[in-house]
Each structure stands twice: as C-alpha cells, then as structure tokens.
C-alpha cells in the first residue's frame, strides 16, 4: 500500500509537469468564461432592443391603427364580393366568404375595443387581452340569440339573453377598473354554465386560485411573464385532468390510455409543478432566465468536453509515452510489482479528472454568479412517489457535473487500455477520440432504432446518464451525454451496471497486458 501511495505521488508530479494539461485547462477556463460572456452579451443586446422599443410607445398604437385600416379595407372588399355574388349560385364559396367576413369583423371590433380602453394589443400581455378576446364571443352569442326567430326561442330565452348581457357589462367593467380579482371572480361565476363536469370545474377553480396567488396583478405589473404563468397553469390542468380521467392528455400523440407507470410519472410531474408554483420558481422560459440557463448548460458542456479531451490525451499516453521515451525503465527496475504501477496510474488519472471537474465547477459557479447574479441559478426540483423536493442550484450543478464525470471514466479506461495494448500513443489517443466523437453520432442514429432488446446492449446507449439521474431537468442536452430528449430505453441501474462491467473489462485487459507482457 505504501508503494502504491509513493507511485501515486510520483504520477501526480509527472502529470503536473505535462504541458498539454496546462494548455487544455487554460483553454477550458477561457472557453467557459468566454461562453458565459457571449450569453451575457446577447442578453444585454436583447435588453437594449427591448428598451429601444420601450422608448417608442407609439409603435404599438400605430400598428393597431394600421391593422384596423387593413381590416376595414378587407371588410369592404369582402362585402363587395358577397354583394356581387348570385345568392343561389355557389353555396360553398359564399359560405367561405361570409366566414372570412365574420373573422375580419371580429378583429375590427377587438381592435376598436382595445383602443377604447387603451389596451396595448401588441406590446402588452395581461388579462385585459384575454377580456378583449372574450367580449366579441359574447357579442356574437347575443347576436345569435337575438337573431333567433321567436318561434324557435327556448323557454328561458329571455334569461339567457339577460345572462349574456350581464356578463358583457361585467367584463366591460373589468376593462374599466382593470381589477384582476374581479376578472377571476367573473370567470369563476361563469364556470357552472360552461357545461364542464363537476371535477373539471374543480380543476378550473384551482387554476384560478393559483393564478391569483402567482400573479395578483394579472400581468399588469410585469413582475411575472404572463404567458409563462398561463402555460404553467394550463400544463397543470392537463396533468390534473389526465390523472382524474385516467387518460394521458400530455402525450404528444394525443390522448392515450394511461398505464400505471405513466400515472406515477405524471403524479411526480404534478408534484414538481406544484412545488414550483408554491415556491414561485417557474421554468426557465423568461428571457433573462433563459440566457442564464443557456450559459450554465453551455459552460458545463464545453468544460466537460475539454476535460474529456485532456483525459484522453493523458490516459492515451500514460503507458505508451513512458515506453517510447524509455522512462518506464526506472519504474520497472524499482521494487514494485507491475500491478501497483498500473493501479497508481489509474488512481492518478481518476483524481486528475476529478480535480479538473471540480475546477470546472468552481469556475462555472463563479463566472455565472458574477455575470448573472449569484441567486439567479435555477434549483433542480424533483419528486418521487408524489413528494417534491429541491436541490439548490450549486449542489445540482455539482451533482450533474459528477454524473457526466462517470462517463468520462469510461473514456479514460478506453484510452488507457488502448495505450497499454497498442503501446502507441498516437493510436491510443486517435482511436479513443474517434470513438468519443463517433458515439454521439451513433447515439443519435440509435434513437431511430426500434425498441428491441438487443439495442440496450450497445454501449453508446448508456453514456447519457444525465437525463436518467435528473429526469425533471428542463434541458438535458449537452456535449458529453449527447442530446437525449427521448425517454431512455433502460433504467438507471441497468446503465450503471453496464458501465461498471465495461470499466472492469477494459481495466482488466489493460492490467493483464501491462503486467504480463515483456518490455523490450
């Protein structure tokens, strides 16, 4: 054991003097800082663009006027066309034109309404836009009721008309008062009339409550991204509904029957969503957040890429380079068994890769903190058995770098094995780099393979550990793991075992070759 420690110390001294190590680490740090700087620059460009827009408040109003004129022109030309047509001739075409006319008139009334109540249709996002969208529907409904010939009117016709008119005036009041709470209450009152089931009404009511809690201004204050809030709430509704009706509405293939596994998944997704809403950490689609997140993921991806390159060069030359220069002689002649020399080499490579990963982590966290603010990082929110929890940004980033580091280990083993077996540095580094670059390509081809059993024994399937460790992460794509948005074919445990077996096989081949073969 003492001998292994002594050999390990020697290996670390040797590696620390390698120029390739210093160069690649320097490149890694420069690249990481540069990428973050690039993101910061783009963010500031975007901000400047927004500010410039803000300084010209008239553009939206002018746009509205322009659109209004355009729709008026269209209305004129459509009415002219309809008038010119023979009412009995072409039913389909007439119907189409009338439909178009209705649409244009609706647009006109919306724009006029927005102008009346001074709501920016194109530059503002708030519940007022929703009201403006909704009112024309009510008018249309009223018109339909009024247009019914008296003999077709139902018994409660007068009542229905009264309700619609009442809603109309209530929504107008909301436009007048700009009170989000009134709007929420109004929608809530309308729910029983919507024809939804009781359960769905309950879900909708939850949605309204959450909405008001999340953003009491309804988008007026600009604190929250209005569209994002709506998207999150819609997502929650579809999750709740899927679980309630046991039909999967969240699938991209449309509604499909629910499996128990899928149900458990959705349960966890719902828990995560609720945790986000409760703690006000919404997903990262707001523009400031997305630059910060993009910076983090590109830094991690590029940094780990450089770590892999460095380790392939170091491991690929670990044995063969010493053989080429002859410095292996002083190791062989020392009173240590060869497996100890090998073990010390492996330990030194593993610790160098770990040190580089942790260095990358520190540089990343520091750069990100300085450029985007130390509290801007997104935590990782996960759930199991319907219970949600959170990892802080700093811990989550460390953990995900360490997960990537696991696949780095496999490439170290590969390069080291080639270095020992071929005794040729160029071959070892070249082949292992080819496999590293190739595996991402092959990995993306494998996506198109049918889900048959043998596919899961292809090694490239198992390098994308990140989405398996952190299934609730927003984006898992990256350099080293290969973008893998699809659900993995195999479980995390299977992948880890597979990689372990791979590591042992390659390690044993290298060890056996190194301890038995003659050194001439």
């Amino acid at each position, binding site marked *: 054991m003492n*001998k292994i420690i*002594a*050999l390990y*110390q*020697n290996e670390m*001294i*040797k590696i620390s*003097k*390698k120029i390739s190590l210093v160069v690649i680490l320097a490149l890694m740090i420069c690249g990481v800082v540069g990428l973050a700087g690039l993101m910061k620059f783009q963010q500031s460009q975007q901000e400047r663009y927004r500010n410039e827009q803000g300084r010209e408040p008239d553009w939206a109003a002018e746009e509205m006027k322009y659109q209004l004129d355009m729709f008026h022109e269209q209305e004129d030309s459509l009415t002219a066309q309809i008038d010119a047509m023979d009412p009995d001739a072409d039913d389909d075409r007439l119907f189409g034109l009338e439909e178009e006319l209705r649409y244009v008139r609706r647009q006109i009334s919306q724009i006029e309404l927005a102008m009346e109540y001074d709501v920016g249709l194109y530059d503002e996002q708030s519940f007022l836009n929703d009201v403006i969208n909704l009112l024309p529907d009510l008018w249309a409904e009223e018109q339909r009721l009024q247009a019914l010939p008296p003999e077709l009117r139902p018994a409660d016709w007068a009542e229905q008309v009264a309700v619609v008119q009442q809603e109309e005036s209530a929504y107008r009041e909301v436009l007048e008062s700009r009170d989000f709470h009134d709007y929420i209450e109004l929608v809530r009152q309308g729910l029983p009339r919507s024809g939804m089931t009781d359960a769905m009404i309950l879900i909708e009511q939850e949605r309204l409550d959450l909405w008001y809690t999340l953003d009491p201004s309804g988008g007026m204050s600009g604190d929250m991204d209005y569209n994002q809030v709506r998207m999150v709430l819609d997502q929650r509704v579809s999750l709740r509904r899927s679980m309630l009706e046991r039909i999967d509405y969240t699938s991209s293939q449309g509604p499909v029957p629910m499996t128990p596994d899928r149900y458990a998944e959705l349960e966890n997704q719902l828990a995560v969503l609720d945790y986000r809403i409760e703690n006000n950490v919404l997903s990262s689609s707001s523009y400031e957040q997305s630059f910060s997140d993009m910076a983090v993921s590109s830094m991690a991806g590029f940094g780990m890429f450089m770590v892999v390159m460095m380790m392939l060069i170091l491991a690929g030359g670990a044995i063969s380079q010493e053989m080429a*220069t*002859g*410095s*292996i*002689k*002083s190791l*062989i*002649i*020392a*009173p*240590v*068994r060869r497996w100890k020399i090998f073990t010390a080499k492996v330990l030194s490579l593993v610790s160098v890769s770990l040190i580089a990963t942790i260095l990358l982590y520190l540089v990343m966290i520091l750069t990100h903190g300085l450029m985007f603010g130390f509290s801007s990082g997104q935590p990782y929110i996960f759930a199991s058995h319907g219970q949600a929890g959170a990892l802080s940004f700093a811990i989550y980033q460390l953990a995900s770098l360490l997960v990537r580091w696991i696949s780095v280990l496999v490439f170290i083993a590969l390069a080291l094995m080639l270095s020992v077996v071929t005794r040729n540095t160029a071959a070892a580094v070249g082949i292992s780099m080819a496999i590293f670059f190739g595996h991402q390509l092959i990995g993306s081809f494998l996506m198109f393979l049918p889900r048959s059993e043998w596919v899961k024994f292809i090694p490239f399937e198992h390098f994308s550990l990140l989405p398996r460790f952190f299934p609730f992460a927003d984006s898992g794509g990256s350099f080293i793991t290969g973008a893998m948005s699809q659900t993995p074919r195999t479980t995390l445990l299977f992948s880890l075992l597979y990689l372990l077996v791979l590591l042992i096989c390659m390690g044993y081949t290298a060890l056996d070759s190194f301890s*038995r073969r*003659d*050194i*001439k």
Partner: protein
Amino acid sequence: MMDTILQIRQLEKSFGRRKIIDKISFDVQAGEVFGFLGPNGAGKTTTLKMVMGFLQPDGGDIVINGFDLKRHYETAMGSLGGIVENPELYQDLSGRVNLKMYARLHDGVTNDRIMEVAAMVGMQGRLDEKVKKYSLGMKQRIGLAQALLHRPKLLILDEPTNGLDPAGIRELRDILKRLAHEEHVAVVVSSHLLSEMQLMCDRVAIIHLGRLLGVRTIRELTDLSRQTTVYRILTPEAQAAAEILRPAYGEGIGELSEQGLDLEVATDRVPAVIRLLAMKGVDLYGVTRLESSLEDAFLQVTGGGLNIE
C-alpha cells in the same frame, strides 16, 4: 567470506520460436566486478533484463540476495540497482526530483543519502536543473546515482561505457571497483569489448548465441592470452623467414602473405625470434601483436572443444 548475491539457474527465454537464452547458469559473489562478455546479439541484454524484471523467463530461476525473483519479487528487487542501456529520466523534472521520485519507491532513503550519492557522482552542484539541460554524461551520472540510492547489494549496468568519453570511462571504472572492493557490492557489467573487461572485471562470463561458454577469472584470461599470442612479422621475404623459423617454432607458423607471416609464439620468445631473423639477414619492417579475437580467447579458455555453430 564470499556471499552469493546473484544466482542464475537454467535460465531460458525464447522470442517467438527463436531461442535467445538457452539454459544459462552462473553465480555472482559480493565484492566482485563480474563481466558479461559476448558479441552483439549474444543474449547479454536479454539475460540482464530478465534479472531486472523487464522480461519474464520461460524457464529457470533467478535468486537475488537469497530471494527468488518469482516468489519474493519486491524483496528481491529491493537489493538490486541497475541501468539498462541509457538511463532515461523525466526530462521536464530536475535531477533532484528524479532522484526523490525514485527514492520514494525504496525504504529508508533519506535526503542526506540523496546528497551523498549526488556527491559521489559529482552532480551535487547541478541537481536543481531540469534533466533536459543535462549532457549525456551528466544524465548517466544521475542514472548511476539513481541506481545506487538505496545501497543495492547487486548493481547491474548494461553496456555502461556506451557514449562515455575516455575520462568518463576511467571514472566509472574507479567508482565500480571501489563499490565492489570497498562496499562489497556485487557489480555486473556487460560489454562486447574484451579490452574494457580486462581493465574492470574480476571475473568474466562469456556468452555466445544464447549459451554460456564459460566463466573465468580475468587473470586466467590474460595469462592464457599472454602465453600464446599471434604476432605478425612484416617482411617481404615471408617464405625465407618461414624456412628459418621452422626448426624451432614450426608448429606456430601460420598464414603466409606478401606482407609477411603470422607466428603464434609465447610473448617472452618474441625478442629471440627477431634476433634470429635479423642475424639471418631477413629484412624486417616490423612486428605487431595481433589482438586475439574474443572467440579465440574463449576458445582458449574453454579448451576449444565447444561447438559454437
């Protein structure tokens, strides 16, 4: 008192189908400089590399300081120091770091010992320079210092004089002799030059085509070669000279040529031969001693009875 430090028994090694070492056995004692002599390709380096752990023997035993290399590898190797061909050090590190790294792999090598060994090879002043700035001679000194750091009982140097200048060779010779005779180290040196061996070694093993032809003390070797040596008598009248010499030295007369004749004769008889020829009026341009070849030497040593095909 003589301790056997290195015992080699029935050592065998093949590369592919070719047998490189064929059942070699010999012993090396403490306190002697042991020469390993043979032409290039005879198997010297292969044998020594098996002792130093580079190659695995196909058969036979190697025992260093009483420990079998197969069963007690680390203990056996602990009493061995050596250099194979040129010492290869880590170029980007200083001489001192190179020595320290090597010292770490042995028990009980102190910093004082590092300085002591550096002083012994005359490198104490330049230990902190990077190895890549050293000359070949300096690298060899550091290599020797490395081999001596842990006070090995057995020191193996493969072709140590390669690339050394005459002064360096003399210095190395002195160091090795002192190590053997004063500190009782068993020193094994390989070479293909008999002349070098004669100046350095106490005993010599002669190896040819993977087989050991014999082990003799250097005194036995030189005595024999002194007793009968071939001299070339330079004269245009070779035929006449041969006739004159035939009665007394008939069995020693060798090849006749236009330059002269070769005569195998004891060294102490050479003046008498010259006098005889001069008296008979033969023109003498010179008499040179022909270096007896290595094969001649060991053929003599071993009685000439070996088939060395």
